[in-house]
């Protein structure tokens, strides 16, 4: 195992975060704060409780997931896309590091950033609403699993993308809509029967539902199902990455 190699990649990526602190940490925190102000404090005060939870608190898990998903994907995809784009990837390819070590470095760093970001948003939320966390360990577990899984997903997108537009299209056109429609701002039970069924095809529903359960003990779908879905997605991403390195897809000619 090339530990120094993993550490080098990880440190390099984290250094990039510090250089772009505004963009990578501050701005998501700011925009989620705006959500809290608008939906939590302003509109939320006129809304009733959902299954015994105030609306301001109810949206916290969904908002965290919203940032977590989009930041994991954009950090990880940019992290690997840029060396490919600038040509500096030659060094990683010519180094004695295995695919596993490369992914650990890049995905590890992206997931760390998302995790820090998620916790920061959680702290920020304290300023706007009162909430409690019923199962803190599960909460952390969901946070870590989601950060890792979606950083891997981002890594795959970064490898796949061969221009800047492709790099942004999936997060923008797929992930954001799925998150908004995944129950970040409402409980699925509030939907008409038909849409409740359709929604179950949206993978983000399971993430948000499971995560919300760890806060308030309420869930749209069974927690076990949520966990299973996250693991399924994790496995899919692992398989994708395994295939990429086996075939050299878009990284080696």
């Amino acid at each position, binding site marked *: 195992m090339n530990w*120094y190699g993993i550490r080098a990649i990880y440190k390099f990526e984290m250094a990039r975060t510090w250089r772009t602190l505004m963009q990578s940490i501050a701005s998501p925190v700011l925009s989620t704060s705006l959500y809290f102000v608008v939906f939590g404090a302003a509109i939320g005060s006129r809304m009733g409780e959902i299954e015994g939870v105030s609306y301001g608190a109810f949206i916290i898990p969904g908002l965290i997931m919203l940032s977590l998903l989009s930041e994991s994907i954009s950090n990880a995809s940019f992290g690997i896309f840029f060396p490919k784009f600038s040509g*500096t990837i030659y060094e990683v390819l010519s180094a*004695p590091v295995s695919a596993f070590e490369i992914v650990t470095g890049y995905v590890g760093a992206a997931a760390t950033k998302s995790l820090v970001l998620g916790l920061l948003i959680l702290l920020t939320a304290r300023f706007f609403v009162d909430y409690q966390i019923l199962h803190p360990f599960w909460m952390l577990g969901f946070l870590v699993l989601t950060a890792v899984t979606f950083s891997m997903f981002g890594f795959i997108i970064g490898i796949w993308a061969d221009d800047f537009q492709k790099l942004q299209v999936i997060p923008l056109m797929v992930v954001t809509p799925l998150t908004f429609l995944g129950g970040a701002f409402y409980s699925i039970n509030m939907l008409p029967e038909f849409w409740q069924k359709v929604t179950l095809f949206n993978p983000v529903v399971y993430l948000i539902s499971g995560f919300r359960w760890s806060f308030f003990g309420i869930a749209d779908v069974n927690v076990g199902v949520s966990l299973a879905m996250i693991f399924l997605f994790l496995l899919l991403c692992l398989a994708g990455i395994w295939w990429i390195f086996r075939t*050299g897809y878009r990284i080696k000619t």
Partner: protein
Amino acid sequence: MNPIISVSNLSKTYSGGFTALREVNLDIHQGEIFALLGPNGAGKTTLISIVCGIVNATAGTVKADGHDVVQDYRAAREKIGLVPQELCTDSFESVLATVKFSRGLFGKAPDPAYIERLLRQLSLWEKRDSRIMTLSGGMKRRLMIAKALSHEPKILFLDEPTAGVDVELRKDMWSMVRQLRESGVTVILTTHYIEEAEEMADRVGVINHGRIILVEEKNTLIKKMGSKELLLQLSEPIKEIPGPLADLPLELTGDGYQLLYRFDIQEGDTGITNLLRRLDQAAIDFRDLQTRESSLEDIFVGLVRGARQGIDGDTGDGERR
């Protein structure tokens, strides 16, 4: 002695269908400076990229220090440093950080003293905290070398190290490469400057259209293929070479004012005495004479041109598909 790099039957066809390397066989000896010469598009970078693991080979194998570069890539790559042809660096990083990164990436424990020595040697120590984008092109080139040497490799590939580098810096680089060789590093460099190969290399390989067409000790090569020329400036122009001299390897140039005589320095008897005697008999006077030795450049141009004619001559498959 076992070769430090051994390339066997290496072929590469890019996904577009272009064949950049054809059955290349090449051994690099431990501790030598090997210059790989070839025109644009000959396959030099492709060959290096396969050895370093950046490009996948279509067929054939490469061993570095006895390790297969695919099967046993870790052991092989630890030994290799690469300075690529293109300058590519992370503009926002600092000099020191990027060199440390390279060392870590290659699995080596940090060694600040070594890194400091390296940067001082390449006159980059003063710039250690500067962002890479603030460096000049020549400094960036040296930085790439520092990165390639950061893990103390036994084998160093320099893909056109002196392209776009001024004379001063080129001289510096040559002396640095020599120092590296002294310390036991094997250096493989590609270049378009024949002068560079002539100046530095122990051995020279010529590649063209994906084939190695020659590998030879530089000195042997110059000796073996070298011919000398004797140029006579005539006092009076002549229209044609007089009949009595027709059996000699003479060429009339310079509007009839110059006679060019080619001879082989390997031969014991160069035939110069004979030539001069017969010129005298033919009553041709000359004002001046000079001799010139053919350089590696002449040899190279001759070889590449020869190979091109060979290919143009063969109407078969390949090149023009």
